[in-house]
């Protein structure tokens, strides 16, 4: 797969994943730019690998971690929930606006690691095996994160429904 092809086929998904992971479209762009610059350097390796999609997501994840480390010297960035929820909402689309609001609000509330698995599973269409490779953890850990994350999402969504009823 060539760089241009990779950007065409996976660029949207990577950008979306990074936006939700970093909580900022601008940061996502910077990191994605870095990912593709790195890809130029390792283009031979990239052409040889079997699963370019998982490889690129893994690369994006590592770059995002580096980016956060450099910027905040290891401190975790905490965005205000409403702001983060808006970023998630702006990066997704769906036929039902109410469902979109509900999902983005709930996604902003769950822990980062669980949200990451859910985002990779639902929006980026990766398998659990691929997510495990991207995150560098066993598949069992990924399925647990998914299960707990989904449970928290459900509770948050139900709580929101009750609040608005």
């Amino acid at each position, binding site marked *: 797969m060539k760089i241009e092809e990779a950007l065409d086929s996976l660029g*949207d998904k990577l950008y979306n994943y990074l936006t939700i992971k970093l909580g900022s479209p601008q940061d996502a*762009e910077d990191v994605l*730019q870095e990912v*593709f610059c790195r890809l130029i350097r390792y283009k031979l390796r990239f052409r040889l690998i079997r699963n370019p999609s998982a490889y690129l997501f893994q690369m994006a994840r590592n770059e995002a971690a580096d980016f956060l480390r450099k910027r905040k010297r290891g401190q975790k960035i905490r965005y205000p929930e409403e702001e983060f929820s808006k970023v998630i909402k702006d990066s*997704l689309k769906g036929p039902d606006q109410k*469902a979109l609001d509900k999902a983005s609000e709930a996604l902003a509330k769950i822990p980062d690691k669980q949200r990451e698995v859910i985002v990779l599973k*639902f929006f980026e269409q990766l398998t659990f095996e691929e997510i495990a490779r991207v995150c560098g953890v066993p598949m069992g850990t990924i399925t647990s994160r998914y299960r707990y994350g989904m449970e928290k999402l*459900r509770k948050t969504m139900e709580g929101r429904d009750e609040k608005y009823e």
Partner: protein
Amino acid sequence: MKNTNKAAKILEQLSPKPMPSEIKERILLKARQKKREYGTLSPAYRALFGISLILLLVVLLSDLVIRKNECRYLVSVMNGQQVSEDTLEEGLKEMTDGLINSEDESYLNQWLARHYRRHKKHGRLRNYQDVLDILKEEINGT
């Protein structure tokens, strides 16, 4: 798992928005820029390349000069100029040892050139053809 179905159904309806085209262009532009940078040499490599090139040229030129001098000298020897008697006596043993298994005349010429250069300042020279004959006799044992 059944309880999470509702949340999953909501998430399934959603999909990522496409990346703005200007961001895509910026990323491609930067990537191409990097590609060009990697295609050319970095300043450190450029300096290293330059130094290596100069060294290579020096070696080639000095080799050329040495070779030219040797040729000039050999030509002068071949043209009937003389070789020192001392040189001949001194090197004769070495010569016969060296040539005992070899009938290559270029080795002989090289030997002559080497010894001529070393002893030409003494001024006691002998004709090249004589030297050659003597050496050949020595080699052939006649």
